[in-house]
């Protein structure tokens, strides 16, 4: 086994962690709805990778940690009701709201609340696709690769997610 592709090599492992941990954490969060838990799952998945590094080469490592993380998430949520904790973690980027009138800001706040609730109410797969696309700025192709389905399937989910959001939010 060449050292450069072995995840037992500390440097290779570190690089791999740095380039994949954040997206994996977000992915797990969108799926299972708890950001703290998602961070624990990422830790455990990578520890498992380390413990099995002799069996899992770098080219297999990505799909390995995604599979381990997803399985961990499923086994935890099997015991508890999934409630997407959206409100607790997502913050609004501060754009130049200072120039707006107070009424406008109030309305925006009200809108954002409704919007976040609507996201929390989306079916898991739709939410996952919508947020990977919007927050992580992933292309449909990249999302399709992550979840192992066709690009077309992702596009359909995205379209459905938007229609569902539109329906839940209503005319505000």
């Amino acid at each position: 086994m060449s050292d450069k592709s072995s995840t037992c090599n500390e440097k290779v492992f570190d690089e791999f962690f740095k380039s994949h941990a954040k997206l994996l954490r977000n992915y797990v969060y969108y799926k299972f709805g708890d950001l703290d838990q998602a961070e624990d799952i990422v830790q455990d998945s990578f520890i498992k990778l380390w413990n099995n590094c002799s069996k899992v080469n770098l080219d297999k490592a990505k799909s390995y940690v995604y599979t381990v993380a997803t399985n961990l998430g499923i086994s935890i949520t099997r015991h508890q009701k999934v409630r997407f904790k959206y409100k607790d973690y997502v913050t609004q980027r501060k754009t130049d709201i200072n120039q707006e009138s107070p009424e406008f800001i109030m309305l925006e706040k009200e809108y954002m609340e409704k919007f976040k609730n609507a996201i929390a109410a989306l079916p898991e797969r739709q939410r996952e696709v919508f947020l990977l696309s919007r927050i992580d700025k992933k292309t449909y192709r990249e999302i399709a690769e992550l979840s192992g389905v066709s690009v077309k399937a992702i596009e359909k989910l995205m379209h459905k997610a938007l229609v569902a959001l539109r329906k839940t939010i209503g005319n505000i």
Partner: protein
Amino acid sequence: MLDDKKDDIFLSRWISGELSEEELQKFQAHPEYKHYAKIMAGADALDLRSYDVDDELSSLKSKRHQKVPKKTGSVIKLWPYFAAAASIAIILGLFLFGPNESFSTDYGETLTVQLPDGSEMILNARSEAIFDKENWEKTRLVSLQGEAFFKVKKGSKFTVSTKSGEVSVLGTQFNVQSQNSFFAVQCFEGKVSVVNKNHTAVLTAGKAYRNLENTPENWNFSGHQPTWLTHTSSFRSIPIQYVFEELEKQYNIQIQKSNIDLKTIYTGTFPNNNKEVALRTVFSTLGMDYSISKDGKTVVLEK
């Protein structure tokens, strides 16, 4: 187009900019357009809590070294954390300290202490905290008298032990207050487990627990840090005895409270950096007159 039921990826194509000029113009004229545009604007305003990848990696490494290739079923791996937070807390009360670090604050002081793993502890006035530096890696345990705010780095269980109860967590932000028969915990982030005599409580962000003379109570609050970090003491329906104690601690004064019913309930705040305003605020709310002795150390109350 949008109304075409067969076009089930229309909106996806719109977002990724794949619509033709003509399609886009038609869509923009559609009454639904502004609603979808607003959804996209809302989505752009979203962001997640940041993720410190270097921090996470080093915490991963510390865990990695603890768990030598012991083969555990990955399925149950997470559970011991949650369970441990609640169950071990009782036993640790008996723990004896080794070589200790001790920090204390005097009247009106606050003190920020960096713990060996980078966690942070901020002590409020007249408080004392002791921890074992040598064994910190094995046991993250702080013994506290008074009030302190903790920002805990992720890692093994972190326990705060007080005379009235135990608080344990994995990584979070919370406030503990323990004086006489008053014990209160506020959780600002993450999840906190509280063991207080016969009561246990699990707090998530925005939840608080207190035990006042053996009456436990839970409540919700808003805010990202305790108010005393910004020089304000705040109270929520509490006997004035504790408000007076806090005034005494913040300003190094003695309040002479003969003929006063110390059980009167008080809700309100006072500043920790302006004695005049603080005294006026508290006593005028209570409808009490007061006078200050010449050396400024004693406050006499007259009802």
